[in-house]
């Protein structure tokens, strides 16, 4: 009956001891690079295959799925390593996306006095919309920083007090936060009420690199999204192998003990919460520019639950598994493979994956590869249960 005494939302057994496995020796470090290199090679390979097959347009859905994967991977860090669950990550995605969308589509030309110097400072720009109307809007870069600021403020507002909460109570608090954000978005005319916002302009990151869903820039957007996902994965991997990671592991093993050893567990938890919230918001900003709009369903409870489910199905602390499962399932969904059975298939897969491979599908796959002698890795594959 040990199951009952383990953490509720904290998947204590699920944390992989990657610190010992990979941190120490040079060989260990090199082995740790295998997934990075593998991923970096898979991205152009997939592009090549699609190109040869004449189905390059699939990159559109891969790009969208990659942005969702960033949200889910950040959530995987929070759930798998800090043992916190957030049922409100859709809200952070939406806060990022909506802040950008409002600032880059709202016409500020009425405030003549203020917009002058803002335009000179390249914070605002005069542009034309689809129907030829002249607008003065905030530039995408400025909107990006504003979006991140909004998400961080919201993250502190909910994260700081919520740290006192544990298990289901924390889950409820984050769910409640998500619902509040969703209701405010759908209730306000500024955010386009139920229709959401559209006509978000493309985002010129630098000359020659544009975040936009238009066909001529489809390939570069695919590489951009996958590149960002890879950067996030490497960043998170380094995080969990650093001081922070060790501190997080100690929180897992026993928060009180960690506290008495002088580790400020609350500060670490807040940091990880804010990091994952920031990733969700940033993904929201990119996604909104890519699809040129955003709707209130992004903030909905169902979306947040979906993120949590994807993170769990990927194996939570197994960030590569989380990224791949999320990428694959969202891709199929956005391609419309399952037609009207889309949700049903998602639900059934969720039950299947978690029943058969609670540590994520990568774990059994790696075990299979190891058995055949194709991959040597010291990673222990102990999962879910102590």
């Amino acid at each position, binding site marked *: *009956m040990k*199951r*009952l*005494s*383990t*953490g*509720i*939302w*904290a*998947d*204590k*057994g*699920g944390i992989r001891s990657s610190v010992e496995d990979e941190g120490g020796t040079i060989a260990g470090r090199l082995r740790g690079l295998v997934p990075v290199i593998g991923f970096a090679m898979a991205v152009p390979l997939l592009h090549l295959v699609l190109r040869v097959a004449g189905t390059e347009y699939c990159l559109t859905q891969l790009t969208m799925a990659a942005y969702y994967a960033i949200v889910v991977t950040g959530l995987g860090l929070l*759930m798998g390593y800090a043992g916190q*669950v957030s049922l409100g990550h859709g809200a952070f995605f939406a806060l990022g996306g909506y802040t950008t969308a409002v600032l880059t589509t709202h016409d500020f030309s009425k405030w003549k006095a203020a917009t002058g110097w803002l335009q000179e400072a390249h914070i605002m720009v005069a542009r034309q919309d689809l129907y030829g109307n002249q607008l003065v809007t905030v530039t995408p870069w400025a909107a990006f920083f504003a979006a991140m600021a909004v998400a961080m403020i919201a993250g502190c507002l*909910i994260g700081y*007090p*919520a740290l*006192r*909460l*544990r*298990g*289901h*109570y924390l*889950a*409820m*608090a984050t*769910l*409640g*936060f998500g*619902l*509040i954000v969703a*209701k*405010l978005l*759908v*209730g306000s005319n500024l955010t386009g009420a139920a229709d959401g916002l559209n006509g978000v302009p493309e985002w010129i990151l630098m000359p020659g690199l544009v975040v936009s869903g238009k066909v001529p820039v489809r390939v570069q957007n695919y590489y951009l999204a996958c590149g960002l996902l890879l950067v996030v994965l490497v960043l998170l991997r380094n995080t969990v192998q650093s001081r922070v990671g060790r501190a997080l592991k100690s929180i897992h093993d026993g928060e009180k003990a960690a506290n008495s050893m002088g580790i400020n567990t609350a500060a670490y938890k807040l940091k990880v919460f804010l990091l994952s919230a920031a990733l969700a918001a940033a993904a929201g900003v990119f996604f909104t520019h890519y699809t040129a709009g955003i709707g209130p369903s992004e903030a909905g*409870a*169902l979306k947040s*639950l979906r993120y*949590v*489910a994807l993170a*769990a*199905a990927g194996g939570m602390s197994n960030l590569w598994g989380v990224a791949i499962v999320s990428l694959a399932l969202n891709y199929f969904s956005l391609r419309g493979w399952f037609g009207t*059975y889309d*949700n*049903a298939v*998602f*639900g*059934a*897969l*969720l*039950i299947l994956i*978690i*029943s058969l491979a*609670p540590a994520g599908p990568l774990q059994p796959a790696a075990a299979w590869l190891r058995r055949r002698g194709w991959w040597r890795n010291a990673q222990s594959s102990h999962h*879910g*249960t102590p």
Partner: protein
Amino acid sequence: MGTGDLALQYLLSGITKGSIYAVVAIGFNLIYSATGVLNLAQGEFIMLGGMVAVTLAHYVPLPVAVAGAVLVVTLVGCLLEWSLFRRLPNHSVLHLIIVTIGVSIVIQEASLHIWDEKVRSLPYFTGNEVSSIHLLGAAISPQVLWVLGTITVAVVALHGFLKYTLTGRAMRACSANPEAAMLAGINIRNMRTLSFGLSAGLGALAGCVISPITMTHYEMGAPLAIKGFAAAILGGLGNPMGAVAGGLLVGVLEAVSVSRMPAAYNDVAAFVVLLLVLFVRPHGIFGLPSGQAVREH
């Protein structure tokens, strides 16, 4: 209408909604106590109850249809535990909770394809759509009394069952201390199956009595589950009477907020209060930190 009458009318509206949330919250607590799992598919039992009853009502009299629906959904609940959750003994509780999300989606989609996307409802148990009862200046549908009556009886019966019958005591023992219960010869597995069955049956009963008021629709489960979850948390998890209070509180908060601010934000008011309560009392209003400690460590 006078101010007093108005207040009463708002209050009644809140109690109607709140009693529904309370039933969902009790369902949460039943399963949570016995298994530690938060069953996010709880709302689907309510939906299924209504759907099955509406279908049966085409062939048999209403009371038989309701009884049949409760029976069918109870079996569905037991079957879920027996076929799924029992087979996953080595999974962490979080994984089981995620599985309930999957179950919720599958039940919902299955209902869409078994029935369809349309709304349906049982006939009013007494009177019809326009009949109303006047109560001290406020007016309500007789169905509201059916809802309140049924739920009160169900809660009292459940309370009696848990407190005074051998099986009920065994269930409580499982939740208080599973190891000791097992040593005392209680079949914990069966108790878990029973908790799923009871919870599903209770949900189905609620699904039937509210059907004339709220109508039954394949997507109705998720919003109810969320509100019920809020009610259970507010009342303190694992505390059935707390769940009743939590549910009524959420319902009344919604209704009262409508009188003071735009109705578009009624959920916002309810959830802001919920968050504030949690920040002040991290274990809900009636939850005990010690009880929580037992469950978590």
